[in-house]
């Protein structure tokens, strides 16, 4: 997998306070989040090691203040990390010169901000065209492109409005359009849909899934919404007090929570909707009879699981049997949370 790692984060620290570097250097390695706070510092990101792979959608979840936005800001070097190392496309972020950093951001990165970060004195059109303008694109081209994405986020007819004349959801869509305009390879989305109504939210999710699937974009996505996470995520990272508690596929997170905290955190999720047949399939005893599709969730198979009397049900991808699913285990998952 390493060849396909886009962002690689090794023991990254981000500490807020008077003298973060000095403090981190002198701090005992065993210090907990609370110990650090007692010393007057805040560990926004605490010893995080995580890789983001090309073309995947990594969803970061966690309670408010757990450091999600801070981590993403470290990925884009809006924050300089206090310790550790982060490389993007093989380049060490911290060793980039200002010029190289600007170049990286212009050519590769895009970000949607939690509270939008729109320029108050520019119209919708000018806001969306802003990154293009900074790259020195000519007026005509950037206008065309901006109009295109404004249409995509359903803001046609408001091109000349100023941010203060828009609703929260509309402002958020301007923020989304601004990052869509440049179609970056690496996309940081900090709660990009939080202010949208369910209908538009779904449209936007589909749009991002489409872009990711078609163009192979790498997306780091922050959300508080489990449904959204499950719909979008290839992997989910769960953060607490600045540290990543677990980073894995949704199935693994609900089936094998790494810590008590993750278990508690994922308790509310309906597991049957998350766990796929493919994950439950065990090589060896494949069972007999017609197989089920590996991509189906337990919930999708509910009727079959209840009525079928086989102890082991074969699971297949593209018609090829990959193993057998223990029906009792699957039934447990189905019944446990309902």
């Amino acid at each position: 997998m390493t060849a396909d790692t886009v962002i690689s984060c090794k023991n990254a620290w981000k500490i807020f306070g008077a003298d973060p570097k000095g403090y981190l250097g002198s701090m005992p390695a065993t210090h907990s989040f609370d110990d650090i706070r007692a010393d007057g510092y805040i560990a926004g990101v605490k010893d995080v090691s995580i890789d983001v792979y090309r073309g995947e959608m990594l969803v970061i979840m966690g309670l408010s203040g757990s450091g999600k936005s801070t981590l993403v800001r470290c990925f884009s070097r809006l924050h300089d990390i206090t310790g550790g190392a982060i490389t993007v496309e093989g380049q060490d972020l911290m060793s980039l010169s200002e010029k190289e950093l600007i170049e990286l951001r212009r050519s590769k990165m895009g970000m949607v901000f939690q509270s939008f970060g729109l320029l108050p004195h520019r119209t919708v059109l000018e806001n969306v065209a802003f990154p293009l303008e900074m790259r020195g694109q000519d007026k005509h081209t950037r206008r065309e492109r901006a109009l295109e994405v404004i249409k995509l986020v359903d803001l046609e007819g408001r091109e000349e409005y100023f941010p203060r004349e828009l609703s929260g959801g509309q402002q958020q869509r301007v923020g989304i359009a601004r990052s869509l305009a440049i179609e970056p390879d690496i996309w940081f989305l900090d709660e990009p849909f939080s202010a949208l109504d369910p209908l538009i939210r779904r449209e936007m999710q589909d749009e991002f899934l489409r872009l990711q699937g078609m163009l192979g974009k790498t997306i780091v996505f922050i959300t508080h919404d489990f449904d959204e996470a499950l719909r979008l995520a290839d992997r989910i990272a769960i953060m607490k007090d600045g540290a990543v508690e677990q980073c894995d596929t949704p199935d693994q997170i609900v089936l094998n929570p790494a810590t008590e905290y993750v278990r508690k955190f994922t308790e509310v999720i309906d597991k049957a909707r998350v766990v796929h047949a493919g994950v439950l399939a065990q090589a060896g005893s494949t069972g007999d009879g017609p197989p089920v599709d590996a991509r189906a969730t337990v919930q999708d198979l509910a009727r079959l699981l209840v009525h079928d009397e086989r102890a082991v049900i074969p699971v297949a991808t593209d018609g090829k049997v990959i193993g057998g699913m223990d029906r009792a285990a699957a039934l447990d998952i189905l019944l446990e949370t309902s």
Partner: protein
Amino acid sequence: MADVANGLKVTATGPAQWTRGKVAVALVAVAVVLTVLRYVGLLPDALFRIPEAMIPPAAVWLDAAFNFVKDDLGLLALTRTLTEGLEWLLDITANLMFGKRRWPFLGPIPWTAVAGVAAVIGYYLDGWRMAALGAGTFIWTALIGQWTIAMETMSVLMVAAPLAFFIGLSLGILAWKHAWVNRAIKPILSVLQTLPFFTYLLPAVIFFKVGPTAGAVATTIYAIPPMILMTTLGLQKVSPEVVEAGNMSGCTKWQLLRHVYLPSARTEILVGVNQVIMLCLAMVVLTAFIGMPGLGAKLLAMMGSFKLGRSFEIGVTIVLLAVMLDRMSKAWVVKQPEHFERDTPWWRRHWYLVTGVAVFVFFCIAAQVVPVFAEIGRTQNFSQGKEIDTLIKAFLALDPVQNTTQMIRYVLNVWILNPFRDFLLSIPTPAFILLVTAFALSLGGKGPAIYAAIFFGLVALSGWWDRSVITLYSVISAVTLAILIGVPLGIMASRSEKWSRRALLACDTAQTFPSFIYLIPAIMLFGVTATSVVMSILIFAMVPLTRYTIEGLRTVPPEMTEAADMAGATRMQKLISVQLPLALPTMAVGFNQAIMFAFFMVIVAAFIGTQDLGQELQRTLAGTDLGKNFVLGICVSLMALTFDLTIMKWATHRKKALGLPD
């Protein structure tokens, strides 16, 4: 002396509040003893006033230092070079505004064109009323026959204000970017803000050419500090997420400043612009003292020869200009851009620009055909100077009026002002310093007390003690009278929402008037006398007092007054035991401002003829007595700073103690 020692010993042991009082009482006691000794003739002269021989020749040293900087370091050569550029700019505006025979030989712009453009700008900023104010101001100016002098003033303002804006903006950006610039600028700014304006004037005259150039320089320097402060403030307030959005869009540093920071700090920067314009106007009028022609010079001349009618008319012009500039620039602060539908044609998007240019061109052409559109001649104007003059003088000559003003003058002079002044002058210098120190100690604590002692000690060493005391006497008596009138006014106004709003509006408007204006009513009523000085300071100082009294009372938390109501307090009880104590810290800010204004005004008023520092200062302007000018300026500054430090310290301390927000 034993008393003092005792007091100091207690300091080490007792609770702070108590000992502070004791030390203060001890200081006062010593002062009283010294004064009494003087009265019975036992105090040696050397302890009464510092002997001439012991006074260091500070003026001479300062002169030497200035001469060194000026000639040996070649500063004069530098400033003379700068002068040329500035003069070129001033010539352009002078040519355009009132037709001075200089390049580009286009002016003067017809007054109708100026009024028309002002109306369009006013309409663009805030609708019809602003348009009427804009046009009305210029129409009045033209019709009353003051167009040329008003434009002389405006032509300097038009150079000084943008210059102050750009310099202030650049320094503000630098101070925000580099902590060390900020650290270097901050103390300079606070000194600049207490230095009396006269200390700006003379160096300007010496280093730059007399007349408009020196006036423009003094005006510019005077207006820079608030622009720096507002710029830094605005840039610091830009939301970090907007900056991050800029960063992620790949902005370079310059792009970030140009496209993200500056536009986002628009509001604060425009507030700075408003302050720059108002300070420039205030100062440009005062540059009359260094012989700059314009409204100020004319007013000075008219008041000097007691032509009340013309003074009044010029006063109205200045007030109208001030109100117009203030309202328009404030309207600009709150004005937000409006959007146009897509595909709106160019001329519709820039409708106001198009109209403005059209109006301008129309009147320029019309003026070629109809001469009164271009200029209103001497015989055509509507000035009623003589008539008003006769009217006012007749009114003042009426028996009841004359009796009243005479009586006020008599009572004030004979019973209050003169005895008070003579009393202050009879106090030995060391006793006086002890008294001021005791005052600073009991209000502000140790820090301000030490400053008070040092500052007044320096004043004593300056050799201008008597005049300083007379200055202080004018300030104290005027502010005391202002308190007696302004505070009750404020209390009455604060009773109802409606009146508070009106009174605040009146105060805010009055604060935009250049200080000169306040001399007019005083002179009208009391002639060119010392009473007028006190009266003009009184009116000037009353404005902030009333303003802050209302503000202090209005911001008393409602739950506290409600608690008093429930306890069955009468209105008076509530006022005295709840509202006033809580409002006092805010009111103190008003006292402080009143005192600062008074120090400022006392110097302006000096031209009426007083015996204080102001008059000496004005005399230095006639010559090139730079050293003496600075010594005098610093005396005023030191006394003002003592009060400023003490009162502000008390106000912040008190606010914290009462748990009120800053």
